[in-house]
């Protein structure tokens, strides 16, 4: 299969949360998100009110996918960093370990691109390390045939989802 399944355990989620909480603080960011390349939100922190995080995740992934396609057309592997500048808020987007997208929302009057870049650099390598561990853990679990929470689901369980 193209990519292994993404599995996020509480332990790694805790580690990730520590890193992005710190990043948000040190970069004076409004919000920080981690999004899987397939468009699923992995973690979030900061001022989230009024932000539709599910849409943000899907569109971020679409954006990275589209620019990744553009990169290949001109002979680049990928564009690992993106910056979208707005009147008040900006988006800084970085690809980590080729699989997870780090999105930072920051305001012009509270932070700067330079500061965000600096902080992202350090956080990226910490996150990359966590995701490597996560990957290994998921692969080991799959290889050992460890029980998926869904191993035992029945047709009735599935039918019940649609019962209303």
């Amino acid at each position, binding site marked *: 299969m193209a990519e292994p399944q993404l599995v996020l355990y509480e332990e790694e989620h805790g580690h990730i949360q520590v890193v992005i909480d710190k990043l948000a603080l040190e970069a004076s960011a409004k919000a920080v998100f981690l999004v899987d390349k397939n468009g699923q939100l*992995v973690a979030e922190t900061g001022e989230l009110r009024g932000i539709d995080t599910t849409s943000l995740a899907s569109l971020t992934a679409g954006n990275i*996918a589209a620019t990744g396609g553009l990169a290949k057309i001109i002979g680049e592997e990928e564009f690992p960093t993106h910056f979208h500048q707005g009147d008040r808020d900006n988006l800084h987007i970085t690809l980590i370990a080729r699989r997870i997208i780090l999105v930072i929302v920051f305001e012009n009057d509270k932070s700067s691109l330079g500061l965000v870049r600096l902080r992202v650099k350090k956080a990226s390598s910490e996150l990359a390390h966590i995701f490597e561990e996560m990957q290994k853990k998921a692969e080991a679990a799959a290889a050992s045939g*460890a029980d*998926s929470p869904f191993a035992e689901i029945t047709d009735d369980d*599935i039918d019940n989802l649609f019962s209303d």
Partner: protein
Amino acid sequence: MSFINYSSREINCKIVYYGPGLCGKTTNLQYIYNKTNPDLKGKMISLATETERTLFFDFLPLALGEIRGFKTRFHLYTVPGQVFYDASRKLILKGVDGVVFVADSQIERMEANIESIENLRANLQEQGFDLDKIPYVVQYNKRDLPNAAPLDEMKRLLNPSNVPDFEACAHEGKGVFETLKATAKGVLTDLKSLGGR
């Protein structure tokens, strides 16, 4: 690729609606959106041209309920059907867990249906997927039209391996939830046997 989050106890799966231009993919999602309890759905996003043709994708997040203490979330996507958007279609298939092929029943669209299925198979293959192995459902849409091809003819041409299939009139909602349900069922059944891929 489905995403299992033990921290929030959620499972996320991705379903893609594929098919030729104007077959009714966006209409399927719009109907699901309109009929779903606001608590269970997120915003529907349509990246479309000014004439409402899908430019990149439509996206609809749905929460279906819990299984074994895990919230099940489905992310539904449509692809742009027009031939020249092939690069975009490939991107949207990344990480897919299940596919719905929406066929246009009109006789004059049969050629386009067949081409689109071949395109689906090839694009999946590029991503490392085999159409014969992933959860897959066929929908014969626009059954209400007078120029609809006979059903057995469509089955023969578009569903030779006899995967679950449904007749539909997506703009009235007929067959829409049946199709989604069968696909979701396929995806969840897959998870059960794989226990992580």
